[in-house]
């Protein structure tokens, strides 16, 4: 999240500094950037630096010992558990990303191009956000009575005679984790894509149609390329959220599946803070690489 916030914050702050009167010169722009620098410095940079420091410390069950040892990294990177857990988390990220992108795009497309009145658009968009009036955890946990062995889905299907035995893999499985994540995170895709689709100049589409493009060609050659910045922002949101998730994986897999954040949480609950810090640094580097990759493919600033 922090990463995503930062990359969006940069373009909005720049135009402001350019508007300052020239008489104050460069000093004014420095002054104006101070609040943001302070906030980012104290609440982002400093904690990250601390995290990096602590990741080199030694520890036992009760204390941390300041030092410069690599054991935390050796233990983290040298264990097959870590690799398997990272792979598992990346797998969730990939599946959830693909599903939220697909669903999110079509919801946004419907809102932007098929709903005619602006009022209706806003109303429907607000309807999309209604589930967010409750907490993340509640939305996730409410799946349990639906998917359980004696839950809504299974009991309905059994009563209708579609199946004779309850389907076991609906709950406490990878399926349940992906389902809950898609449910939780799709709106993070809808919002930025909807935003970019609304900015597309309708005359471009008319021009394409006049030039003889089919509906498919308009979609592929006009709308999709122009929606890319929204997709990229949505992707950053979803990928960082999934990579950092622990509660969804823990609850929906019934503790049977592991995620990187869950691994960190386990270490923290055993007070192995330096080990958790090393893990956090590794995760941070990985997520930054992913975000960097996304920004390479799509230039958010240019196309906004």
């Amino acid at each position, binding site marked *: 999240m922090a990463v995503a916030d930062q990359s969006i914050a940069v373009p909005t702050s720049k135009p402001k500094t350019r508007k300052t009167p020239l008489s104050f010169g460069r000093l004014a722009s420095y002054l104006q950037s101070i609040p943001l620098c302070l906030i980012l410095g104290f609440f982002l940079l400093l904690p990250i630096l601390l995290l990096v420091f602590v990741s080199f410390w030694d520890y036992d*069950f009760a204390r941390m010992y300041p030092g410069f040892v690599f054991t935390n990294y050796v233990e983290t990177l040298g*264990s097959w558990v870590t690799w*398997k857990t990272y792979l598992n988390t990346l797998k969730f990220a990939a599946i959830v990303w693909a599903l939220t992108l697909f669903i999110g795009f079509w919801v946004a497309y419907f809102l932007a191009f098929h709903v005619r009145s602006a009022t209706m658009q806003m109303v429907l968009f607000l309807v999309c956000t209604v589930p967010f009036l409750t907490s993340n955890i509640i939305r996730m946990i409410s799946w349990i009575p639906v998917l359980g062995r004696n839950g809504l889905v299974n009991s309905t299907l059994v009563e209708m005679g579609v199946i004779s035995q309850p389907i076991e893999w609906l*709950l406490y499985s990878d399926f349940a984790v992906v389902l809950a994540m898609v449910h939780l995170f799709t709106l993070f895709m809808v919002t930025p894509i909807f935003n970019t689709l609304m900015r597309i100049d309708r005359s471009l589409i008319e021009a394409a149609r006049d030039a003889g493009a089919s509906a498919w060609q308009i979609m592929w050659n006009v709308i999709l390329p122009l929606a890319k910045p929204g997709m990229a922002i949505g992707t950053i949101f979803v990928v960082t959220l999934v990579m950092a998730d622990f509660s969804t994986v823990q609850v929906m897999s019934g503790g049977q599946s592991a995620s990187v954040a869950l691994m960190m949480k386990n270490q923290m609950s*055993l007070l192995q803070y330096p080990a958790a810090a090393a893990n956090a640094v590794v995760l941070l580097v990985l997520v930054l690489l992913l975000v960097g990759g996304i920004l390479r493919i799509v230039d958010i600033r240019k196309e906004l």
Partner: protein
Amino acid sequence: MTESSKTAKAAMISRRSMLKGAAALAGAAAGAGALGGFPTVWAQNPITLRQFGTGVSNLNAIAEKCKADLGITLEMTATDSDAAAQRAVTQPDSYDIADIEYWILKKVYPTGVIQPMDVTKLKYYDKIVPLFKTGKLTPDSVIAQGTAPHTVGYVDAPDSKEFAKAETGFFTMVPTIYNADTLGIRPDLVGREITTWADIMDPAFKGKTSILNIPSIGIMDAAMIMEAMGNIKYADKGNMTKAEIDATIDFLIKAKQDGQFRAFWKSFDESVNLMASGEVVIQSMWSPAVAAVRSKGIACKYQPLKEGYRSWGGGLGLAAHLSGAQLDAAYEYINWYTSGWVGGYLNRQGYYSAAMDTAKEYMSEDEWGFWIEGKAAVGDILSPDGAVMEKAGAVRDGGSFLERMGHVACWNSVMDEDRYMVTRWNEFIAA
């Protein structure tokens, strides 16, 4: 979340009672006078004791009653057991009384943050059940494996960091609360007699079992299962060798991959929901969770098993920094704690008090018969806050105190190879 709200409540109560000021203090003094035996000095010279611990016995009712009887304000903080161990060692000045489990004490005491108690100052020392003094509930009991409380209960001298082999005049902690844990079952869904820990691995229950995902306790339940299946014979389940840990974890990984488990639970409410919804028919469980499932009107049994129970126990320790009036107040508090009211309260919650004789005076004959003697309840059995826990005619699962605590196979413990065990446990969860 429940833990922090509990803390907040405890703090609130103490603040509220502070605000009531002189009136409350006078009332407290009168109450103490009526009870007799407790000096009213603390009412005139208010003293606050800060107690932190693992939560089971951090009950607001105890703080309120303590205020009323002794005039001592108790500020309680509840944490989980790992955080409790850390806080005990790293912030020794932040508490006056440590309410911790015996296996935590084993880690914490050698760092010098707890001062041993002089048994001559403990009014009810003689009433404490022998389980905590010799490890034997009755003279012919077998001493259980793991961190048995008596092995960390004594030191030779006030400044000694080594635990004594036998009873001495210096007690490290006064035991307060303990219980025997076993597997919980849904008698309506298992469809057969459950008699041994090995039954949880029965292929008939494939995908319908659960164990708890708290490494230090989960590994013990796994050890009970392994031994019951005849896979291995541990020298000490509570202190496994690396090879024994490997064998246990490999067994768990295989069972997990074969789909034997439905889920792993971490918190109390998760275990209740798994059982109540029928996702699971047999699992590791704690006794209040069994009571919670039953209170929903769903059949649930805390099944005694032939290999015995896995037991846990906690007590109160004095912080090393206590001295003078505060130390006297702390002794006063501990003597009050063991004088019976708290014991009766804990017994009626389904736990056990360490001073049974004094607790008996605060329980009705029917309550004593049901909870401690394993007799059928004559009337309805109520919890301390008045809710019906068991209907008339019910018999406690596992029977009497002697039958339950007399069949402890192993105590919760901390292993020498603790760190290795946790690493391997994480592999099991990730596998």
